[in-house]
C-alpha cells in the first residue's frame, strides 16, 4: 500500500534520514520505534509531504506522492494525527471534527462519519460545544483521532499518540488504534512505548540516528537481544 524507498531528508544542511526504506501492506499495523531524535516524526512528516525528500520516493497505492503539496495528501486517503494533538483550541470539539472532513468525499458523508465518531467517543458527543482547548489531555487525543477519522482515511499515521497521557489512557489509546484497524484502516504508528506497541503490531521497524537498523514482526523484535538491551534494559 505504502512504499517508502530510500529517502534522504534534510533540515537545512542537517541530514536526519538516511536511505530510509520500508513498506506497509493493506490492513497492517506497522510501528516505527526509536529514541528521541531517531527520525520517527520526520518520517511521518515526510509522508505527509510537510518535508520533501532530497532523494528517494514515496508511493501510495502505486502513485508517487512525495511531490504533492501537503494539503492534497489527505485526498489520497492518508491522514496524519500529529504529535501533541494539534487541535484548533478556540474552535469547539464539533468544529474541530468538521475541519477533518473537508475533502469532497469525506464532506459528502460528513453527518454519517460524525455519528460514527461520536459512537466511538461518547465523551466527545457530551462535549461537542466545548472549546477544544479546554478538554483534558486524553479527551484532546480522542478529538484528534476523531478528527483524523473524519477524513475517511485508508492509512492513518499516529505520531506518538501516547505522549503525555496517563498509563491507563495509553492503554485506551492503543485499544482504540486496534479497533480502528479492525474496521479496515491501515495504521502507521510511531512510538516509544516498546512493549505495548510490539505486542499489538504486525510488523515494526527500528530507527536509530535516522537509519532503519532492524525490522521484523512484533514478536521477533520483542525477543531480539538488541531491542531488549536498547529499549527494555534487560
Amino acid at each position, binding site marked *: 500500500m505504502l512504499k517508502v524507498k530510500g529517502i534522504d531528508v534534510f533540515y537545512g544542511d542537517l541530514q536526519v534520514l538516511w536511505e530510509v526504506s520500508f513498506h506497509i501492506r493493506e490492513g497492517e499495523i506497522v510501528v516505527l520505534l526509536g529514541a528521541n531524535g531517531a527520525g520517527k516524526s520526520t518520517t511521518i512528516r515526510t509522508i*505527509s509531504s*510537510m518535508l520533501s525528500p532530497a532523494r528517494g520516493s514515496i508511493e501510495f497505492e502505486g502513485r508517487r506522492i512525495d511531490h504533492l*503539496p*501537503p*494539503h*492534497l*495528501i*489527505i*485526498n489520497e486517503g492518508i*491522514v*496524519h494525527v*500529529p504529535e501533541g494533538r*494539534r*487541535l*484548533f*483550541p*478556540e*474552535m469547539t470539539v464539533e*468544529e474541530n471534527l*468538521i*475541519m*477533518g472532513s*473537508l*475533502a469532497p468525499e469525506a464532506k459528502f458523508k460528513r453527518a454519517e462519519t460524525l455519528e460514527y465518531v461520536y459512537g466511538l467517543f461518547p465523551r466527545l458527543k457530551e462535549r461537542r460545544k466545548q472549546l477544544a482547548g479546554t478538554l483534558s489531555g486524553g479527551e484532546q487525543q480522542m478529538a484528534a483521532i476523531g*478528527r483524523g477519522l473524519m*477524513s475517511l482515511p485508508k492509512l492513518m499515521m499516529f505520531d506518538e499518540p501516547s505522549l503525555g497521557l496517563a498509563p491507563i489512557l495509553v492503554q485506551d489509546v492503543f485499544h482504540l488504534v486496534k479497533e480502528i484497524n479492525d474496521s479496515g484502516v491501515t495504521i502507521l504508528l510511531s512510538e516509544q512505548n516498546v512493549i505495548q506497541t510490539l505486542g499489538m503490531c504486525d510488523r515494526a521497524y527500528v530507527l536509530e540516528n535516522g537509519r532503519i537498523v532492524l525490522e521484523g514482526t512484533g514478536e521477533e523484535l520483542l525477543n531480539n537481544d538488541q531491542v531488549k538491551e536498547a529499549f527494555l534494559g534487560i
Partner: protein
Amino acid sequence: MKKGNLTVGIFALLLLLFPLVVRSSYYQHLLIIIFIWVIIGSSWNLLAGYAGQVSFGHAIFFGVGAYTAGILVTKLGVSAWWGMLLGGFIAMAVALFVGWVCFRLRGPYFALATLAGGEIFRLIAINWESLTEGMVGILIIPTFKSKLPYYYLSFGLAAACILAIHLIMRSKWGYYFVSIREDQDAAESMGINTNRYKNIALLVSAFFTGLAGAFYMNYMGFIDPDVVFSLHYISIMAILVGIVGGVATIMGPAVGAVVMVGLQETFRSSFFGLAPQWVSEGHAIVFGLLVIFVIMFMANGIVGDWNKISRLFWRRKAVRT
C-alpha cells in the same frame, strides 16, 4: 443575537440621522475619519485577527489606493471618483505581489516583512517623482463643498466592509482562516491549502483598505507619501484600532476606531483648546500608555472583554445602591 441586531440597527439609524441634526462640519469630519478607520481596522482585523497573519504594512494598500485615485487625475485627467472603483483592485494586485513575497515567512517574520514592505512603498512614492510627484504630493479639488455626500459614502463603505467580513467569517472561508491562525500545520494536514486562503484573506483586506485610500484622496484632496504610506499614522494605527477595539471580533475595529480617532483628535487639538499647546505633542505617549493598559487589563480589547468591563460597572452600581 436578536438583541445584538437591534442594537446595531439603532446605531446605524442614529449615524444616518447624525449629520442632519448636528450641522457642525467639524463633527461630521470627525465621523468621516472614524468611518475610514473602521474600514482600515476591520480589513486589518480580517487578515491579522482572524487569519492570524499580523500585518505591519497596511499603509501599502491604503497608499496604493490613494495614489491610484490621485494619479488618475494628474496623469490621465480622469475624475478621482474612478479611483474608488480602481483603487481597491490595484491594491489587490499589489497584495498578490506582497503575499507572494511575504507569505514565505510565518508569524513575527511575516510581520517584519510587511513592515519593510510598507517602508519600501513609501520610498518608492517619494522617489518616483515622474509618477507620484514625490514629496510635493498630489492636490486635487474635492468635488463637493458639503460634507454630507462624503459622510454617507464613507458610512456606506464602512457598513459594507463590516457586513462583508461578517458574512465571510460565517462562511467556510472564516473557518479556514481561524484554523490557519490556530495551527497552520494542522490546517494543512486537514487538507486546507493554507497559502491560498492566507492570500484570499490578504486580498479582501487589501481591497477594502485600498478603497479607503481612494476615498481619502477624494475627500481630503491632498496626499503625499509621508501621509498615506506612513508607518505610524497608518500601519501602526491600523494595529492599534484592532487591538484596542478587540482582535478577531466583528465590531471591535469599529469601537477601536472611535476610541483611537477620538483620542488622537483630543490631543491634536490640545483638549479642544482647553489645555496648553504642548499637550498636542503628547499623543504618542498616550497611545503607548493605552496599548500597555489594554494589553495588561483587556488583552482581548474593548469588545472582546466587554463582559469583564460591564461586570466592573455593574458591581460598582451594586455597591452604591
